[in-house]
């Protein structure tokens, strides 16, 4: 019996003492080894981080030295030490782009996009790749990601630049409707910056919306009255919408700026000529209008004659019918006839502008007055009948 009790005590010790004791010993061993491993791994982590940063800095230095191939190696090495580091991967992708390894760069950008689809930088890069490869849907998707995405700093500026790129993309594709829609969105949120207003105005001018372009140029030079691109752009835009007096004013102001080149003076001359020849000017008396139309006919006839003499007395075939019509009109091209037949004023002007249009491609560079007539023809399309 006593023996049995001893046996039971041993068993109880096994259960109450041995198993818990073993667990406690194993826990203690775990703690000791974990502490040692922690110290070991911390030392290694420090070294890894240090090496990662060192190689990242090396890569950036190589990029600054314009050695993207060396930068690629350095960034790849930095990724060994911190494969998840966003900056390392982004810089590697950028360096790969610079080396011309676009597919490899694209792959990194795509993997970054998978990690953070809202990142503006990555979206913009991917949009640029899509533009280059002509993938319109992808380009729009990534541009949209860049415009509405997260940016590390100056997010408004970056988003605006992304929108500018999207507009340029549409313009390159000839999709002026989409470009203009985006321009309207862009111009509604512009800060008070003459450069930005002027850039937007340029784009409006590019899509042919000169009135909106003029508005933006005006905003630009209101912010900086001496900002040459805005003055010149406003002059051009006003010229295109047919407001020659305003154009003359802006171009005159632009011509006084240091940045003004010969193109300003040329346009000013044309504008002044257009202003002088414009038969559609509001409040113009009929006699004055007749004078201007007759003067226009004279200029156009002179252009036709000059063209004929330049080509040895014979006009190019496409101008021959116009010459015939000019000759038919010639006897009636006088103030007396036109005063009696005011309904013939516009058809005479149409003949003048038609001669200018047709001779534009075959008779060499037009003079300022010829260009003015062309501009007038474009801004006031008329029917001879």
């Amino acid at each position, binding site marked *: 019996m006593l023996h049995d009790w001893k046996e039971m005590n041993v068993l109880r010790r096994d259960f109450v003492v041995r198993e818990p004791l073993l667990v406690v010993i194993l826990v203690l061993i775990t703690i000791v080894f974990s502490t040692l491993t922690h110290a070991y791994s911390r030392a290694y982590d420090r070294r890894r981080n240090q090496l990662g940063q060192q190689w990242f800095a090396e890569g950036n230095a190589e990029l600054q030295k314009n050695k993207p191939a060396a930068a690629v190696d350095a960034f790849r090495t930095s990724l060994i030490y911190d494969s*998840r580091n966003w900056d390392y991967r982004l810089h590697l992708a950028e360096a790969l782009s610079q080396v011309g390894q676009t597919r490899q760069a694209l792959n990194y950008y795509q*993997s970054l996009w998978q990690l953070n689809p809202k990142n503006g930088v990555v979206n913009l890069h991917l949009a640029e790749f899509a533009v280059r490869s002509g993938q319109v849907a992808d380009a729009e998707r990534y541009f949209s990601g860049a415009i509405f995405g997260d940016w590390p700093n100056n997010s408004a500026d970056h988003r605006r630049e992304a929108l500018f790129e999207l507009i340029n993309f549409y313009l390159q594709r000839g999709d002026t409707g989409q470009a203009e829609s985006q321009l309207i969105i862009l111009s509604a949120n512009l800060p008070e910056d003459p450069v930005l207003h002027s850039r937007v105005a340029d784009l409006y001018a590019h899509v042919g919306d000169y009135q909106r372009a003029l508005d933006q140029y005006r905003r630009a030079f209101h912010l900086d009255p001496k900002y040459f691109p805005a003055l010149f752009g406003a002059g051009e835009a006003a010229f295109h919408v047919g407001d020659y007096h305003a154009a003359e004013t802006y171009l005159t102001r632009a011509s006084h700026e240091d940045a003004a080149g010969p193109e300003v003076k040329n346009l000013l001359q044309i504008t002044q000529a257009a202003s002088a020849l414009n038969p559609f000017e509001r409040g113009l008396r009929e006699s004055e209008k007749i004078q201007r139309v007759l003067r226009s006919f004279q200029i156009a006839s002179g252009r036709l004659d000059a063209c004929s003499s330049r080509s040895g007395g014979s006009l190019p075939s496409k101008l021959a019918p116009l010459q015939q019509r000019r000759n038919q009109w010639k006897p009636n091209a006088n103030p007396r006839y036109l005063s009696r037949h005011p309904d013939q004023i516009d058809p005479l002007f149409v003949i003048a502008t038609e001669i200018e249009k047709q001779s534009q491609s075959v008779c060499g560079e037009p003079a300022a007055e010829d260009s003015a007539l062309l501009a007038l023809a474009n801004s006031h399309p008329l029917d001879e009948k």
Partner: protein
Amino acid sequence: MSTPDTTLNPASPSSDSFVAAADAFRRRITAQLSFDEDRFFLILAVFIGIFAGLAVVCFRITMEWVRLYLLGSTLNPPPLRAFLAPCLTGLLISLLIFTIFKGAAGSGLNQTKAALYIFDGYIPFRTVIGKFITASLAIGSGHSLGPEDPALQIGAGLASAVGTRLKLSRKKMRLLAPVGAAAGLAAAFNAPISAVLFVIEEVIGHWSAGILGAIVLAAVSSVVTMRLFLGAEPLFRIPSVGVIRWQELVAYAVLGILGGIASVVFSKAIGWLRPKVKETPMTLQVLYPGIAGLLIGLIAVAGFPQVMGAGYDFMDLAMHDQYTWEILGLLAGLKILATTLSFVSGTPGGMFAPTLYIGAMLGGAVGTVEHNFFPYLTGSVGTYALVGMGVLFAGFLRAPITSVFMALEVSGDYSIILPVLVANTFSYLISRRLQAAPVLEVLTRLDGLSLPAMEEKREEETLNVEDAMSPRPSIVLDGDKSPAEAWPFVSHTAEPFFLVSLPNQPPAQISFGELRHLVEADDHRPLRETQAISPVPYLHPDEDLEDALPLATRHSFIPVVNRADLSQILGVLDLGDVMEAYRKSHEEFPAPY
């Protein structure tokens, strides 16, 4: 437990009833308090997982330190270092293996299997230390080997050390080695499911519910431990798989074929060179790790440092489409060469990582070619590289189940399963066709060992009762009939026993003698009411023949009955039927090698 306190006092006066009660209590408490090895085994599995995880963390860090010191911190080491480091370190490793750590050579996988099947799961702790040091040196210095197989052995070795210290039974010691192996592999590959499957598929060779829980616990705890220290990042960044078009399955099939051929080339190269190396004098064998290192250094200096070490960084680059297909193909070929050299020289290190590397490069090459020639197919090169890894795993290591789950676990994307299945099937079939014995079996034989062939075990034909049973006997007596009515059916036969069918019950049996006795006694009761019938064990058609064998040895015949209706006799089975079925099965399906 409401027994009075007096029962616990051995000094108290005793009476008969008191003694009996005390004795009963003692027996009960004895049963409850005994040290339960099974219960403690699961707790131990968790600790083994933690220890293996810690060991693998230290192992990986040591390997990286060695690489930093020997090869420098650049992705592509400077030529002089690349040339000298593997050679000189190879010589040092050789010295260590031939003097101090004699059991540390090789990958560790076969050694673990040998420990499991030959030494009852015992792995000397010196081997663990030796494997840790020599494998760190080898892989860190640029030998073309991987850390997973050594980690597997280190885990198994740690488990063995703990089990030995706790004086566990031989049975538990045998179970402990695979537990540690799974923990080591899981931590090294950061993929617990794949590790568990690999150990079951390649180390244990069969599914065993008894050990599965412990293996899973150990694998999970080791991965958790490892991630605490090294982070949860996978070994490589997997690009998203995306939509896979059906046309791409053709490319994946091509990848499977190429992978199968590459697996065979790799296996044959090792199988051809290894015996030649082993035949040479010992003095020359000492030099082989150094010579292998020298040749790997030459490959690196020739412009392909990517073949050095485990190569995970380069797999990552391949996955991110950073190489042309020509370079990828060349790297796959050179890696086969470099790994063959390192491995046959006896340098410690595994083949797990090189296998994945070769697969990733082949996959990347196929993916890049597809991109170049069929740009409208949008599958990413990374997906091809990932599938390629599985392909080599299926073809070279012949672990088809692990290969599928590995791709799933690493990518975390189930849309990859179809290309993985297509490619792995081609690879596995080609490899089996062109190379009968898997490389691990070849190595086992070359080492002079006889370990169970896992592929053979895995694919062993399982026979069921229905494969062996004879048709329903012509004479089955009706239990509702009287002995006199039953007698005419049996009187002319020489059978000693007859089955008696009983309504809604399994059949019983009656002997010829008993029936005759009942007839002579003029017993008019139905047979089922007599004491002469006796119960007989029964089987179902789908039961394993292996399970039926013990019954067949004890009974002259066993009825096979329907699971839904136990009274319905489908056939009978006797020992002769069982033996005949096994004989036929062996003739029909001989071992593949």
